[in-house]
């Protein structure tokens, strides 16, 4: 899969997909989207990049191993639930807060942190598997 066109557009495509995945993740609470879908999109992005430029480059770009990302995701998802214990409400009860910056009101909530955890768990796991599979592929 090392055609010139693919290798040229892959980085751009990947960048757009990753940005889009974050967009999908963050809007997910009110419109179609969310951590799971966002994670899948990002994982596809990473898989495409891997096919185009090789696994070694992707690993370099990711800095951390994708499976660690997945572990981090599960960790923060679980951790977001702990925050509610501080308010003496059951585990994983959603807490909501608002920050106003000028005219914009930004919502911060534990479900959002949870969703980010889901995102990382999905993107980490799938890209780890995809990269590991591509690795054998590239070696040929």
């Amino acid at each position, binding site marked *: 899969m090392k055609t010139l066109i693919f290798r040229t557009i892959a980085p751009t495509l990947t960048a757009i997909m990753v940005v889009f995945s974050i967009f999908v993740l963050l809007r997910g609470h009110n419109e179609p989207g969310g951590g799971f879908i966002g994670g899948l999109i990002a994982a596809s992005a990473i898989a495409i990049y891997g096919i185009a430029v090789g696994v070694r480059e992707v690993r370099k770009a990711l800095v951390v191993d994708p499976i660690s990302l997945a572990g981090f995701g599960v960790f923060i998802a679980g951790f977001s639930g702990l925050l509610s214990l501080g308010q003496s409400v059951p585990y994983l009860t959603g807490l909501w807060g608002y920050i106003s910056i000028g005219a914009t009101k930004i919502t911060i909530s534990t*479900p959002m942190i949870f969703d980010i955890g889901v995102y990382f768990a999905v993107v980490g796991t799938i890209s780890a598997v995809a990269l590991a599979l591509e690795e054998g592929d590239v070696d040929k």
Partner: protein
Amino acid sequence: MSSDLDVGITLAALAPFFAAALAPFIHRFTKSYAGWILAVIPASIFIYLLSFVEQMSRREFVSAGFEWIPSYGIRLSFYLDGLSVTFALLISGIGTFIILYSAAYLSGHKHLGRFLSFMLLFMGSMLGLVLSDNLISLFVFWELTSITSFLLIGFDHVRQASRRAAIQALVITGGGGLALLAGILLLHQITNQWDISEIFVWGSTIKEMDIYPLVLGLFLLGAFTKSAQFPFHFWLPNAMEAPTPVSAYLHSATMVKAGIYLLMRMNPVLGGTTEWNIILPIVGGFTLLWGAAMAMKQTDLKQMLAQTTVASLGLLVLLIGVGTDAALSAAVLYLLAHAFYKGALFMVAGGVDHATGTRDITQLGGLWKVMPVTFVAVLIGVAGMAGVPATVAFLAKEEMYAVLEVSSVSDLFENWQNTLVVFVMLLGNAMMMAVGLTILVKAFLGKLKTTPHKAHEGSLSLWIGALVLGVFAIWAGTQIKYLGSIIVGPVASSVANFQISPKLHLDFEMLTTLPFFISTLTWVVGFVIYLAIEDIRAIMLRTSKAIGWTFDILFDWLMFGLIKLSAAVTRFWHHGRWELYLIVVFVGVALAMALPMIGNFNMPQMPGLQALSFFEWGIFGMAVVGLSAVVLAKTRLIAIVSLGIQGFAVALIFMLFGAPDLGFTQFMVETLSVVILALVMTRLHLEQRDARVPWEVARDAALSLTVGISVTVLMISVLQNPIDLRLSEFFALTSVPIAHGHNIVNVILVDYRGLDTLGEISVVLATGIAILALIRIRGGGPQTGVGAPKGVKKPKRARKATPAKSKRKTTRKSTKSAQKKPAGQST
């Protein structure tokens, strides 16, 4: 009940756990002082608990605790009465010296911090066990003692023998623990109570129920495995593989006494029946004789002590089973006596081992000259073992023999059970005394022999515990008035659940009593056995050689049989033939859907198709084209991609019918499935085309059609019924005001069903790790990323490994794992 008390008692029970968490750090920073620092914890617990003794002696009790799982009515509750406080005092008191002793015994060991941590964990579990009121917390602590003792016995994990001993102890005591859990649950079913103190009043009811034998059997199984009763006794001698401090602690006052504690605790509820009075004395009596006899066979100090421990536990079970006032007082006294002298003797055995490098009594001799303090400790210990007057053990023996209540010779035959019991105890005690004498004379008297190390007196920490325990045993043995009223009376009364006032005496009057006569007889018999012990040992060694098998061998045989069986079962189900897996799964699916419909089969009405608009026809056509392409495809790759087409068509349908989230996810899953499947295909180096013969194709086609038709029929018939919209309405109503989200699907995922999602992403992560492991096993280890060999990340090495890899025969394992991924995600 004040809240201070709640906190105090809970803290006393849990403090060792905190100390255990700190132990490795304390050891790192303070090195050789760690033992002295950590011993403060059990010492403080001991002093704290002493403050309850006065109250306990008045037969009062204290209960304390916190809510734990309120929805099940389970509290972390503690119940302090004579029995539990006495046990807790033994655990913390002896524990203090054991911590000191451990630090000295293993000084310089690089994992001493870990060892002390395990010790404290064990101590905490044991304290929790004896103080627990709640049956569930009792069970939790009970299992914790099994687990921590596993860690302790297997501490020297490099040696195969200690690993085996650890597993053996865990299997046997853990298995008993399961029986205990079943018993606890049954008891809860009957009484609807979790607290032992509440269950006491149910005693007479339970004993008359039909289910009583089952409850009793389960509890006895738990107690007998823990307390090493025949035929579960063999784990205890093997557990001597542990470092000596472990033996000194686990086998004197703690682990093995947990079963005794349970029997004593449950005596008011389960005891006193015919079954109780028959099973316990028989099992206990047999264990007593067996253990004592086996002890005579040994020449290793620790093994001798271990086997006599088995015997002593048998004696205790026997006494609890007899259950008369005298027997219960004797059990309590003997419990104390045994904790003192056995703890001391184990510590001495470790000290001797430490000083001389051997524990074999045939290689030892004359140690009294070089280890005078240790000699004094061993002298007192053996005096306890023999039940010499002025020790607690003597009083215990007097009470034991008082079981025989006779006024004339004919009574001996009339109450033949009691006569038999006393005879068994006499024999057992005599044999144990002979073993004690052997240890004393062979190892400490006579000529000094040359040993691997030059014998020398150990450090203070090594002998202080043994000496203090010995001195305390004598002190307690002479203060009979206090001993009787403060300890023995209250404890025996707790066990019996009615007032028992033991008649302890230590004066010239007793010289004329029957128990004293039997005691004297015991000494005589014991001395005779001692004189003949060499011959007895020779005979026993020959006999056991002739028999040729032991419980150990039986255990190994069972364990390996279990492993072989599970391997056979696994091989049967996990044959590794991928198409068979699929066939089994899909046949199962087809049956599950078709069978329920057979009973009341009404072919559902085909819903009238609404007129489809042209783009709906388009999508439909797309799905059909995709499916046909899958079936007709010449190569596997094309089939995979075609499957994607069909999936995309389904995703479009989702979009059209108002499920954008679902459609969205479906798109992504389809894309990734195709990518991953294609990647897997290239790794597997399969032939491009499948090589199924016609009948296999026919079989698979028939199966696919069956599943497809069943699903369709099922869906149609489901749709015939009105849909229950309550949940949907609930979510639609509450999603914005409660969960602040307009996207109900997402709100359900991250809020309403957050815990489920957390579980799901954990599964995703675990699956990912498993897949990585499988890929890396096939690929000969990781080349990059986590776990890759450091410093050899150059691509050259990876390339070198490739030829070998591609030559390897492909297996279906990695296919399986990789295909599981997309399937798992679309759910």
